[in-house]
């Protein structure tokens, strides 16, 4: 980026090369739903001048198809940019393509889609994780300067980062404007970043963060230059290891790798100790009940009239909407619509939805209590190594949901996280998740960067 700005590298050549290489990668691993054939270098010589950026397909990009991985949005060409896209374009970034994902973000392996399914560059028979699987895939495969903009609701940045050996930064809820994001679960969706260097993630977050009048849930807290947390000292930093995140359901080899890294952080000046977050086992059911309730409401707007899949108008309102929705939504989207509609129905609402919201309050309280004592917590990112597609096929929906066991609690509590690659297991990438208190992304950058340069 600096080279492009100072003229030693041609931004036009770098973008041309990034697109050409992306096409080659697409043939092998399918990270994209759409490649931006018209991508060209920006004329704005900002902080991202000459940088190729891929964008998860649930974030609106002006003039470039945005499907959120769903057939019901196939062909939708947004007439506007999401706020985060406008911000990176204003700094000179170029969008090279839209990355593959589970439909609307409904999944952990990027297989719940009728569009593109990304394959893991470490082993093409395995998943890249989800739901931002395409973002993880292209970040791992790209041998050109590149950063991915992605999104997480319950772990959709951490999972692909862990499974592809990349870095995934999920900011605090409200830190980045959601304007222009195709909503999954409004109270949990967060736009974030995947990259190969902590510096790149910190810089990108500095650019996309900040209040936006177009998103009433975006925080009014002043944003920061997060790169100032690079090269910090870890002396006096307190880190907790919540024992529930190293439980029986987690591959022991992954747990060991993460515990080894705690020892490394101690040698760098941090103080690490085991602690407990006792409500953790309740995170999965309460997360899913909240997520599907909000999702089923959000998906009510897809009726085949204004954008995306549209049929010839026949029958009455109900008949037409039902026809389009039945054809356009995939299997998992229907499953979540059904479960969410059920959980919100009169007579069931208190039992499911409100109970889940109360549990969320308990989980937030527990995290807040922990962060009075600790600057950050570390855990494994995912409980398993990236599974094979052939094994994923045999998982029940319930088994699929429980793969998110380490990511749902911080996500539903709005806590920022970063996933860092640690030693491989069976030659496959695995990750360590660092969790900080709300709006303390600086602590994540500080620890992750020191870890990156020392590991």
């Amino acid at each position, binding site marked *: 980026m600096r080279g492009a700005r100072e003229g030693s590298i041609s931004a036009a050549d770098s973008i041309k090369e990034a697109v050409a290489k992306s096409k080659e990668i697409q043939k092998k691993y399918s990270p994209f739903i759409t490649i931006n054939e018209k991508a060209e270098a920006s004329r704005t010589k900002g902080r991202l001048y000459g940088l190729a950026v891929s964008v998860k397909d649930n974030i609106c990009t002006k003039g470039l198809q945005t499907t959120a991985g769903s057939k019901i949005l196939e062909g939708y060409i947004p007439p506007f940019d999401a706020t985060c896209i406008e911000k990176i374009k204003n700094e000179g970034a170029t969008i090279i393509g839209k990355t593959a994902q589970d439909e609307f973000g409904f999944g952990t392996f990027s297989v719940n889609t009728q569009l593109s399914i990304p394959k893991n560059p470490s082993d093409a028979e395995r998943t890249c994780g989800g739901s931002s699987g395409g973002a993880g895939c292209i970040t791992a495969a790209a041998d050109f300067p590149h950063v991915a903009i992605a999104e997480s609701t319950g772990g959709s940045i951490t999972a692909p980062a862990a499974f592809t050996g990349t870095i995934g930064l999920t900011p605090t809820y409200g830190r980045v404007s959601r304007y222009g994001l195709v909503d999954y679960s409004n109270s949990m969706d967060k736009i974030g970043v995947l990259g190969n260097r902590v510096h790149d993630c910190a810089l990108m977050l500095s650019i996309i963060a900040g209040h936006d009048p177009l998103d009433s849930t975006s925080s009014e807290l002043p944003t920061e230059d997060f790169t100032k947390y690079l090269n910090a000292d870890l002396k006096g930093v307190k880190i907790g290891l919540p024992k529930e995140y190293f439980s029986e359901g987690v591959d022991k080899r992954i747990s060991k790798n993460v515990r080894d890294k705690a020892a490394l952080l101690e040698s760098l000046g941090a103080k690490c100790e085991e602690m407990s977050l006792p409500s953790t086992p309740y995170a999965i059911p309460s997360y899913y009940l909240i997520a599907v309730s909000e999702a089923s409401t959000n998906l009510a707007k897809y009726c085949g*009239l204004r954008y995306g899949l549209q049929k010839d108008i026949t029958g009455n309102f109900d008949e037409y909407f039902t026809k389009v929705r039945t054809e356009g939504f995939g299997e998992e989207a229907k499953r979540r619509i059904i479960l969410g509609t059920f959980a919100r129905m009169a007579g069931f609402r208190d039992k499911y939805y409100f109970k889940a919201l109360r549990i969320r309050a308990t989980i937030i309280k527990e995290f807040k209590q922990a962060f009075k004592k600790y600057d950050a917590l570390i855990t494994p990112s995912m409980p398993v190594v990236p599974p094979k597609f052939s094994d994923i096929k045999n998982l029940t929906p319930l088994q699929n949901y429980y793969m998110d066991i380490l990511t749902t609690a911080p996500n539903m509590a709005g806590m920022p996280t970063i996933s860092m690659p640690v030693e491989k297991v069976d030659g496959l990438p695995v990750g360590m998740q660092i969790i900080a208190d*709300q709006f303390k992304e600086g602590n994540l950058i500080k620890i992750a960067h020191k870890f990156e340069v020392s590991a």
Partner: protein
Amino acid sequence: MADYWKIDKKLMDRICAVARLTLTEKEKDMYAKQLSDVLEAFKQIDGIESKESPAFHSVTVENVWREDVAKKTDWEPLGNSKHKENGYFKGPRIV
């Protein structure tokens, strides 16, 4: 409603009508079975008493108000629709 944690076929029909989805009998059986399994596991939340107020958001969110003043956009709202007439979306008949 004796068992909250079960979706039977009759309830499935009611849900599909609300959600505007048509399912085949085979799909109804599949979803009813899978979701009953999911709900059986989610019964777990009965095991925790929480006296906290429901957290609709993870962070404090306040209502935001603005003046009700029309603003011009520089984009065409009908641009993605093939169902339009005289500057309006054209929808199916109501009944």
